[in-house]
């Protein structure tokens, strides 16, 4: 084992890490937005909306992420062509972001739903008594409190997503893992680079989850 070849490769690996972080950030932001929308739909009194959201969540939770990534890689350019009528070149990056966003939304939806349900019923009642509409209640009263409560869970899910971004290897996107693997193969030291990649993933996820645990203790009332 000789890890000295890693040092000169660091700039390339950092670029891979940037791709990984971008994927994660876009996935988390989009996923939380869509997930919140789904959660509000699931809890709404409109049967149709509630069922629609429930089906979405159950569907995405029962298939593997890797399947979604692979499928979207093929399907997103195809669908875009069908919609816009012309060839729109989309890279693996875009299709992966769409895949992560839609897949994670199902998981974020469940977290947000639990968060909303943990807010005492009286809050909604009081807001309605003040003459707020349902939308205002949600936006101004329920969601701000719910999000404070579920921040640790959302962050925990984001750490899982950080690890899951490595699956984009399947469609050849140069994320951190793929950058490490391809560099290791070129130099002829695949093992060293693989171990290094594992160590980096471990350090980042472990440190992040320690921080989340501390945050959880501070947020707990």
């Amino acid at each position, binding site marked *: 084992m000789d890890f000295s070849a890693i040092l000169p490769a660091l700039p390339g690996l950092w670029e891979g890490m940037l791709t990984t972080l971008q994927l994660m950030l876009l996935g988390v932001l989009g996923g939380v937005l869509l997930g919140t929308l789904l959660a509000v739909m699931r809890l709404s009194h409109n049967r149709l909306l509630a069922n629609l959201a429930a089906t979405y969540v159950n569907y995405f939770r029962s*298939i*593997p992420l890797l*399947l979604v990534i692979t499928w979207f890689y093929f399907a997103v350019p195809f669908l875009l062509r069908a919609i816009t009528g012309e060839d729109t070149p989309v890279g693996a990056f875009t299709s992966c972001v769409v895949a992560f966003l839609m897949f994670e939304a199902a998981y974020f939806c469940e977290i947000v739903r639990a968060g909303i349900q943990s807010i005492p019923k009286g809050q909604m009642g009081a807001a309605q008594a003040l003459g707020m509409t349902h939308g205002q209640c949600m936006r101004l009263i329920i969601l701000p409190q719910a999000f404070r409560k579920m921040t640790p869970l959302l962050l925990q899910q984001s750490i899982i997503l950080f690890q899951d971004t*490595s699956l984009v290897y399947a469609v050849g996107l140069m994320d951190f*893992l793929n950058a490490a693997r391809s560099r290791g193969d070129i130099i002829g030291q695949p093992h060293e680079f693989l171990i290094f990649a*594992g160590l980096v*993933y471990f350090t980042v996820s472990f440190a992040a989850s320690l921080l989340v645990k501390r945050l959880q203790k501070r947020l707990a009332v």
Partner: protein
Amino acid sequence: MNYNWDWGVFFRSTGIGEETYLDWFVAGLGWTIAVALAGWIIALLLGTLLGILRTVPNRWLAGIATCYVEIFRNVPLLVQLFLWYFLVPDLLPEPLELWFKQDLSPATSAYLSVVVCLGLFTAARVCEQVRTGIQALPRGQLAAGHALGFRLPQIYKDILLPQAFRIIIPPLTSEFLNIFKNSSVASLIGLMELLAQTKQAAEFTANLFEAFTLATLIYFTLNMGLMLLMRLVEKKVAVPGLIAVGGK
């Protein structure tokens, strides 16, 4: 949109003997189940052992189990799989290494790697569930066991574990389902499980929407079926009055 929808594609011949594309999916499902079940056995055994270790009154043993969990939970599954498939065989003693690389067929060596990988990966999660289950029991259970003159192994075997397992059936079910979904990473080291077969069928027939729709349907049905099965198990083993089954 110039796409030829053709749901009959699954019954078309692949050009090899009598084989249809549907046969590919069936073979893929077979591998998926074989990977998941074998991995689950390892995960359940090792996870239970680790879960017990995390709760025993011995700092060292608990520390070892905690380290295991942190390592296996914080490294991505795919990285772990690559380590098992590309790195570990090189570290084996030479006769074993040659056996793994030369005597085994590519499918078998990929299968072994992915089973070990998924088994150890899922064991960390099972461990946490078992620990939660044991810690959820009233402390009086342990004390009563001691008072009755049971030794620690007996207390675990006869008192704590039977109750803990009943409590954690729902989270264990979701880990059980996860191992089926996670087995799809095997396609990345060349094992022709369900996802790999789907990809291949999509590329051969150019009917990618049909192929992926069938694959999602299979995963979906498998999931629902196993979930219903586990609900039955949960009802069957429930001790009346101990835990409310399906109650809120």
